[in-house]
């Protein structure tokens, strides 16, 4: 039987699938569901210093090839989120704490708290495309990506994974900046900036007009980003964007990802999507003679 165990720097995972940030990551019980569904680890909802309600509804709409959302980073604030992280950690679940802030100091403070709650790693949301002054707005600047990463690295001992935005000309440049800030790995991609209009209503559907595009429609862009980043940095990459099947996951892995995150596919397949993707990966590996996941990491980069 092919072994699916994965490593992302210091992080050892039973398989390469991780629940993506902002999907079912509001409570410990939801995150435990994802782990029961087969995820090797979970990322929390992105958490800030203070509670925020996010944007008013409609915050999400289904389109032909995926979803658009403008949740706007709702969260209970880091202090209230303590029991949720602890609730997963105490069941031996691997939690990656996603955090957002408006400056390096804020990121560092949040990361420290996540570490103290028992998070195994911290993910820096430098990429949310629909929160004014946060996420992608700062995450598009090389200096800020480097400085924020560096500040968080100084603050915590657990691995630090900046999550990058594809809404730039050169995501690999951002990855390089993160590596220079001593990131332990890169998470790519967050959603694409997008819009849907309901013709009868003569108006964009999302309350924020713009939203982040996720799901199958963004996979070719995500795979390209991971391939580009893998050509630029030496640290491991966690691929995310439109993964629904084992083949999708393998595309990311062959492009250079050491593990993957799954978000939108939870809608169609439920929390069991992780086990499904792993089973499909296992079948592919057996049929194609791969013994270890690591034999596939970056495999598509050798050819050309």
């Amino acid at each position, binding site marked *: 039987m092919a072994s699916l165990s994965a490593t992302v720097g210091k992080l050892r995972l039973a398989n390469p699938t991780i629940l993506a940030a902002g*999907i079912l990551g*509001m409570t410990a019980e939801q995150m435990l569901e994802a782990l029961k569904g087969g995820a090797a680890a979970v990322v929390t909802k992105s958490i800030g210093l203070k509670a925020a309600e996010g944007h008013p509804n409609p915050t*999400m709409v*289904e389109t032909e090839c995926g979803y658009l959302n403008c949740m706007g980073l709702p969260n*209970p604030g880091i202090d209230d989120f303590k029991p949720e992280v602890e609730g997963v950690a105490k069941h031996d679940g691997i939690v990656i704490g996603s955090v957002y802030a408006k400056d390096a100091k804020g990121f560092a403070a949040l990361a420290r708290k996540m570490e103290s709650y028992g998070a195994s790693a911290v993910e820096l949301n430098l990429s949310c495309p629909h929160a004014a002054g946060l996420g992608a707005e700062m995450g598009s600047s090389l200096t800020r990506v480097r400085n924020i990463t560096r500040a968080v690295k100084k603050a915590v001992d657990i691995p630090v994974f900046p999550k990058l935005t594809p809404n730039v000309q050169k995501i690999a440049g951002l990855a390089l900046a993160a590596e220079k800030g001593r990131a332990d790995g890169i998470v790519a991609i967050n959603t694409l900036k997008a819009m849907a209009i309901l013709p009868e209503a003569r108006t964009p*559907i999302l309350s924020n007009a713009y939203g982040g595009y996720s799901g199958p429609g963004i996979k070719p862009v995500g795979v390209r980003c991971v391939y580009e980043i893998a050509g630029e940095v030496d640290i491991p990459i966690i691929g995310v964007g439109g993964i629904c099947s084992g083949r999708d996951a393998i595309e990311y892995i062959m492009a250079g990802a050491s593990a993957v995150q799954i978000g939108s596919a939870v809608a169609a397949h439920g929390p069991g999507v992780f086990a499904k993707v792993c089973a499909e990966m296992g079948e592919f590996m057996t049929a194609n003679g791969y013994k270890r996941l690591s034999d596939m990491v970056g495999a598509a980069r050798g050819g050309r």
Partner: protein
Amino acid sequence: MKAARVTDVLQESEHVWTVRFDLEGSALPGQFAMLWVPGGEEMPMGLSYIDWGSKGATFKVVGDGTMALSKLKPGACLGTKGPLGRGYAIKGADIIAIAGGTGIASLAPAIELAVSGGKRVTVVLGAKSAGEMLFEKRLKRLSVNLQLATDDGSLGKKGFATDIAQRLVEKGGYDQMLACGPEPMLARAARMAEEFGIESQCSVERHMKCGLGLCGACALGGARVCVEGPVFVGKALLSMPDFGKRRLAPSGKVISF
């Protein structure tokens, strides 16, 4: 999101309205839809009418979103997502349905389905007072055992719907209990059903954002109310520590009922 056209807007009582719209397709009693008056806030609403060519929602005006819904005119465009979630799965021959306030909105189609399926149905319809009694006429047209209850005794029996129901359930004979209303009422109903060995199905509300099972806003235990609910088996609800006690505010903060 689908654009439906509003066909009727009816005032049911001082604060309660029904909006009918021409959304096509099948729906199960107990399912809900996300409704959006363009420019305003989108919100979840149980379906009070589920005909193939026409759906309806019956709601209390409690804020801007429901106010905008009540002000719609026939011909207006209504953004819809759905039908969503799981509805009531009616079982057995003898059913007792307990509704509190607007809870009857999504229960009514279930009651109609049960009656047309040849079930014996008892309905305990509760309201604060006579003026707030909902769907009385709609239910009187059906061959159901209709028991009205008001908190102030201004119509039907005086007392909570669950109290009236308890007296009936004690006499025995029911195979299933359906319930929709405020969560503390549902908790009482589910415990009652448990005590008397009756299967119960309760429709639960949580603050919803995406309605698609992704954002996690509607968490109830490990379940997503928008996908695994809104109708849950009472036994499952009783095993969830937060049922009837805690829920998530729009920020995700855990708050008490």
